[in-house]
């Protein structure tokens, strides 16, 4: 497959040897992940194959509406997936959904408006997928942290409310830490990119035979776009979600496990 972008099923099957190696390591060291590894390998094959056909369909149809439908579906499933990581946050679904939608729409809208990418399926589908995927991870981490922070600081939050502080004032330090933890992974990986690891887009372009300069520039565009999208998604999700911990009378709600 050198210098070519054609990848056969045989090539894919050959890399299953490494999946088998991972399963063997798990079995040998009793990590109890063999089943999960098998499920991951099968699910990734089925899901990526399916999305490959969907993308082909959208490319062939060449209409913006199908692109928007696909991105909306990604936002919906992203919010549902992230909600599972934010179980301690009451009503986390809507903050996540709105956060992902705004992050996706604003960052894609901006890069199109700036003329970086054309508003065609070939750009919007892959870039949109990366934007929404990263925004999902960041907002899930942020709300997961927010739930832990509020749970661990109930006394401090109530003591601050008891002084006549608003919910926003009482929650501010914890919302700030949650947003930071949502963003920090991408910020750190952006700092070390090219030194410690080569990001996927760049690797893909190099494998496909692109000029390294173009590969680097496209990768930078994507990294900067992703920074914007995770910031927006984290900001919107935490800003909307912290309110769900409080009543309109600025009281901290009972945690779900205690609420009778």
């Amino acid at each position: 497959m050198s210098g070519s972008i054609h990848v056969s099923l045989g090539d894919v099957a050959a890399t299953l040897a490494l999946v088998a190696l991972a399963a063997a390591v798990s079995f040998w060291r009793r990590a109890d992940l063999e089943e999960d590894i098998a499920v991951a390998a099968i699910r990734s094959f089925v899901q990526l194959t399916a999305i490959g056909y969907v993308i082909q369909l959208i490319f062939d149809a060449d209409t913006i509406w199908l692109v928007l439908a696909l991105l909306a579906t990604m936002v919906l499933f992203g919010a549902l997936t992230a909600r599972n990581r934010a179980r301690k946050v009451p009503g986390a679904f809507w903050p996540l959904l709105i956060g992902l939608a705004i992050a996706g729409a604003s960052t894609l809208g901006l890069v199109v408006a700036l003329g970086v990418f054309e508003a065609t399926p070939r750009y919007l589908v892959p870039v949109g997928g990366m934007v929404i995927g990263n925004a999902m991870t960041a907002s899930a981490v942020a709300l997961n942290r927010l739930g832990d922070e509020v749970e661990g600081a109930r006394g401090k939050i109530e003591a601050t409310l008891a002084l006549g502080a608003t919910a926003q004032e009482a929650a501010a330090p914890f919302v700030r830490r949650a947003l930071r933890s949502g963003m920090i992974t991408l910020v750190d990986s952006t700092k070390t990119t090219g030194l410690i690891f080569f990001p996927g887009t760049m690797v893909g372009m190099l494998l496909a035979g692109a000029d390294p300069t173009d590969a680097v520039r496209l990768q930078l565009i994507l990294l900067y776009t992703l920074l914007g999208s995770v910031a927006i998604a984290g900001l919107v999700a935490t800003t909307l979600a912290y309110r769900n911990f409080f009543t309109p009378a600025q009281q901290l709600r009972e945690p779900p496990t205690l609420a009778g």
Partner: protein
Amino acid sequence: MRAVRDHPAVLFELRDVSLSRGGRRVLDSVSAEIPAGATAIVGPSGAGKSTLLRLLNRLSDPESGTVLYRGRPLAEYDPLALRREVSLVPQLPALLEGTVESNLRFAAGLAGEDLDVSRCLRLAGLSADFAERDVSQLSVGEQQRAMLARALTQRPGVLLLDEPTSALDQAARDAIEATLAELRRELEISIVLVSHDPEQARRLSDWVVRLEGGRAIESGPLEVLT
């Protein structure tokens, strides 16, 4: 159950107040009056004392029944303004990160009050050099005093104190009690104190509400009940 008859200021009145938490009835049809001055809410652990205290500045609301403050239902007050007027100091110290002074400044700013750091520290029994101390460097007793100083920056009319000495050794407890007695002499402030210690209630209050199993079993002037 005695009423605060002819008392010039009934601060709080609870009428048939009930509240459950975690599926358990914590307060069960509690009716009681709390006059101006110093009131102790006493009773064994789990009697609902802290829960009752939280109702008085609306950190919680009852499921049924009414709580009145100065003759008006609490729900009619703006909760933020109410909490600056009726200030609750929780059982465990819970200061914000930073120095003692930054905590005092935060609280005073919320209430729109000018801040006199050394006065508030002195009232809480701390010397002025505590202002610059980081809260993480304070002992529990010092933190408890810093919490008290923080509440006093807002010049509240009522202090709600939830077991203010439960985490302290006897020397620190005596010092806090002396501070509270001094506060009452120096400021026109009412105190509602939760305590599981009848002796402390006797030392610090002149009206007692006794809870057991979520019910108010008696209330009245200290000398009548003891």
